[in-house]
């Protein structure tokens, strides 16, 4: 490395000044990006670099900006109801839950890799409001807006809220817990009651349907057939494209997809509730 260091000696003073406060002894060194590229030669040759999208004109997004980089949409829809107290025997529970306490939620994330490097760029939530379903969505268009999104979502939750999700116990809730922790905010989901519909649906219909994904459940139970739906796997790319200055086209489709997920979640819950005691039994 000595020759590389030698070449960098001139740069070091410069770099040393800018980091002097944080620097441990010995003085930190700085390598130029050209040196690194050269060193990476053998490895990089096989790897294609992603292309930066061209600056796009179609950058129009939904909703209003309620904080820098944070967009908010709200919509009230008529949806199978009106809600009656939720019979929770499908979840092998006894009590009836007041629908006013329900908060259906679903996140759109940058991937499935897990760990601290995955984030939610959109949080959608639905609740019953004046007999209609209220859909609210938070979307960040900058990384810096994440804490604002997390704080806003926290405001939507009350101590007696009952979360409703599809696989949220294993996926969305832990992911948000990580994000709150990284933002040094208290996790508002901790300790809340949570109805995860994936497992009851599986218990009841596994083997009868080709699979138990939400899209299948909504088709079978609610007769919903999506048109022009953006597959969930393309959501990360849609957001990244927008983040890097590309078109908003697919990000709008992600929002539509998320809104449909929320509606289906509410609908599937009502169907499960309507099963009464039947759902508690194992399928024959």
């Amino acid at each position, binding site marked *: 490395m*000595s020759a590389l260091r030698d070449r960098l000696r001139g740069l070091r003073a410069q770099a040393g000044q800018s980091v002097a406060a*944080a620097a441990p002894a010995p003085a930190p060194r700085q390598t130029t990006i050209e040196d690194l590229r050269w060193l990476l030669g053998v490895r990089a040759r096989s790897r294609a670099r992603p292309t930066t999208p061209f600056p796009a004109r179609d950058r129009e997004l939904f909703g209003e900006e309620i904080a820098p980089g944070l967009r908010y949409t709200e919509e009230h829809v008529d949806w199978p109801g009106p809600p009656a107290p939720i019979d929770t025997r499908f979840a092998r529970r006894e009590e009836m839950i007041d629908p006013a306490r329900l908060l259906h939620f679903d996140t759109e994330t940058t991937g*499935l890799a897990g760990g601290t*490097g995955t984030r939610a760029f959109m949080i959608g939530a639905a609740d019953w409001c004046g007999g209609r379903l209220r859909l609210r969505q938070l979307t960040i268009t900058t990384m810096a807006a994440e804490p604002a999104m997390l704080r806003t979502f926290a405001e939507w939750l009350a101590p007696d809220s009952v979360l409703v999700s599809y696989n949220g116990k294993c996926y969305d809730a832990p992911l948000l817990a990580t994000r709150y922790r990284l933002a040094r905010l208290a996790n508002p989901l901790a300790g809340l009651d949570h109805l995860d519909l994936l497992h009851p649906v599986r218990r009841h219909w596994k083997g009868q349907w080709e699979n138990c994904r939400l899209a299948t459940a909504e088709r079978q139970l609610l007769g919903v057939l999506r048109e022009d739906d953006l597959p969930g796997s393309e959501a990360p790319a849609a957001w990244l494209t927008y983040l*890097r200055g590309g078109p908003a086209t697919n990000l709008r489709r992600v929002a539509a997809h998320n809104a449909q997920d929320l509606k289906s979640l509410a609908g599937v819950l009502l169907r499960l509730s309507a099963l009464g005691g039947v759902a508690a039994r194992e399928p024959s």
Partner: protein
Amino acid sequence: MNALIDPAHRADEAAADELVLRGPADGGALAARLAKRYAGRVTGSFVVPGREGAYEPLPEDLPPALADALRARGITQLYKHQGEAWAAAQAGAHVAVVTPTASGKSLCYTLPVVAAAMQSHAKALYLFPTKALAQDQVAELLELNRAGELGVKAFTFDGDTPGDARQAIRLHGDIVVSNPDMLHQAILPHHTKWAQFFENLRYVVIDEVHSYRGVFGSHVANVIRRLKRICAFYGVRPQFILCSATIGNPQQHAEALIEAPVHAITESGAPSGDRHVLLWNPPVVNPDLGLRASARSQSNRIARLAIKAGLKTLVFAQSRSMVEVLTKYLKDVFDHDPRKAPRIRAYRGGYLPTERREAERAMRAGNVDGIVSTSALELGVDIGALDAVVLNGYPGSVAATWQRFGRAGRRQQSALGVLVASSDPLDQYLVRHPEFFEGAPPEHARIAPDQPLILLDHIRCAAFELPFVGHEVFGNEVATPWLEVLGEEGVLHREGDRWEWIADSYPANAVSLRSVADGNFVVVDRTGGRQTILAEVDYSAAALTLYEGAIHMIQATPYQVERLDWEGRKAYVTRTHVDYYTDAIDYTKLKVLDAFGSAPAGRGDAHHGEVHVVRRVAGYKKIRYYTHENIGYGPVNLPDQELHTTAVWWQLDQRTLQQAFDERQQALDGFLGAAYALHIVATVAVMAESRDLQKAVGSGDGAWFVSSDASGRGQLRGADGQPTALEPDAPFTPTVYLYDAFPGGVGLSAPLFERREDLVAQARSLLERCDCHFGCPACVGPVLAVDEAAERAPKALAARVLALLASL
């Protein structure tokens, strides 16, 4: 080779053995009798004197319940080094403990850690290089905890920990015992799940730090940087307690790993008996050919005598198959009654974990009289007290030799260590120059954590764990240029002064600390229609041990490989009863793909570029037990083990060589010696381990390569790996290569190219300053045949090659 020994000779040996077995049995007595009866074979013998114990009372500031628990376990006082470690830890220092095996090292960290857990619910993270060591440690902690009802919870956390247990360990573990790989791949990238643990983390204990050297050590040092970065996020600065076996630079190495000053404790207060060491050269069995008996036959004999004399004996073999062969030989003597529990056990990587645990338990309980192991037992796995250690071949380093000898030793009784030389030139040199070994200091452990490509891997992982902000420093480097590279790659997104992870990937999975290729092979027993998994073999060993036709032994029971499913990583075997074992024939060759840079080097030239290294298993030999006759060959049809990497190389052209050397063989010997010397200085220059940087001598076009023969001279081999000779008019451009032994390279060769002139100068000075006449392991490699003129000795020839490559 035993076949060559006539019956009369055999009877003599039996009589000699009878005499060896007479009289009291301890290591010293046996050493004396062996040295007397086998004077012709024992080329060196020395005694490392034992020492009295140095004790001190249990510290007064130890929590009373912990002191009671220690007393309940029979510990009423501490060794001096344990007391010193306690005091240093209480004073808030990072501590490095460097004392021999079985000196009660673990109490040095157990006391501060358990005390802190009891007094302030402080947490501790233990890192061990292997799962077996981690499990030992937890068992020990649980016993101490039970003895005093201390309420301290210790758990292992490794790849075998079930998912539902992980949550409980994260929340309730006071002491989490894991390994660097798990920290790197499972804990740090999920640190938010461990938030409570990190917020209360007081101690990080890293044992066996001498094993974290070279590229592996450089990776581990970067994992520690990431750990400290996460700790800072949670507002803690844990104290480090490190333990090491004897190496040349323990304090410096500990400080390099954690990048902070440490309080080093190097004086052991534990008592020990004398250690008697014998260097043993197998006898010449064919004076005409100069053939010696095999090391294996001698190790077997010495182990047999030691076990018969009542000494608990450990034999170290260099390969897994040699472990099995020696186990079989000892079992044939000691384990012929199947109704009795086995007295001889094999221990090596590749056994199923349950089998290894079972063997460890049997050894600890004293039910085993003889153990045959690979380097797997070099580390501190608790196997109870032993009396004798036999090394079947030199382990390759002074430090490892002493670590292995250190496995034997009781407080009151002398121990025996025997190094049996193989026919390898290095082994032969050592036993013929016992003073070289006796006086040699243990090697230094070296790491280069700022190696740019390793650094890039870990900055990538670190950015996944927490965003980089501003001109953040990672280790000693400002991370910004690395972040820019990662930004270009598309995995990071820059916003203002923050670099955030944006890719849908989990970078730690793509970075292996140990650079081992993925995909263990499982060995499936199909005997009688069964489908049982017998063993796991790691990828690197598969080609050498699982080819179709191979005899694969497990605890000396032979199985034959019937089918190898390379893609599916499975070998199907059946139980067999053949009287032979198999040995793979493999060779390595190297070809230049592309030169990135070239420059004149004296009268030749130096280059740096991309090379292709191919290791091929060409076939296998069938070797009959005991007689070791070669009774046949078999073909092997396996994919080549290919390595695409970077190298630096030096060449001299044909005309220059013709002027400088009388014959081509001399030039080859000179190149081999020059390669050896350049390799020594280059490993130091890039702070690598010798295994991380490999050397080779071959033709510039890959048509042939050169390996050392038994006497240390160069043997030309063709592209098929067979010995060959060149046509007198064939082109002749010998080349010395130093290459990075990692796929894609970790960047060792570029700096070597930059320093090429310096390296040649250093290699020349290494030769000049070496006191030997013809060549030795400290300069151009071991040289055995010295019956010729000094100017034709490898040392002189290598000096001539280096002079031609030196700046004019």
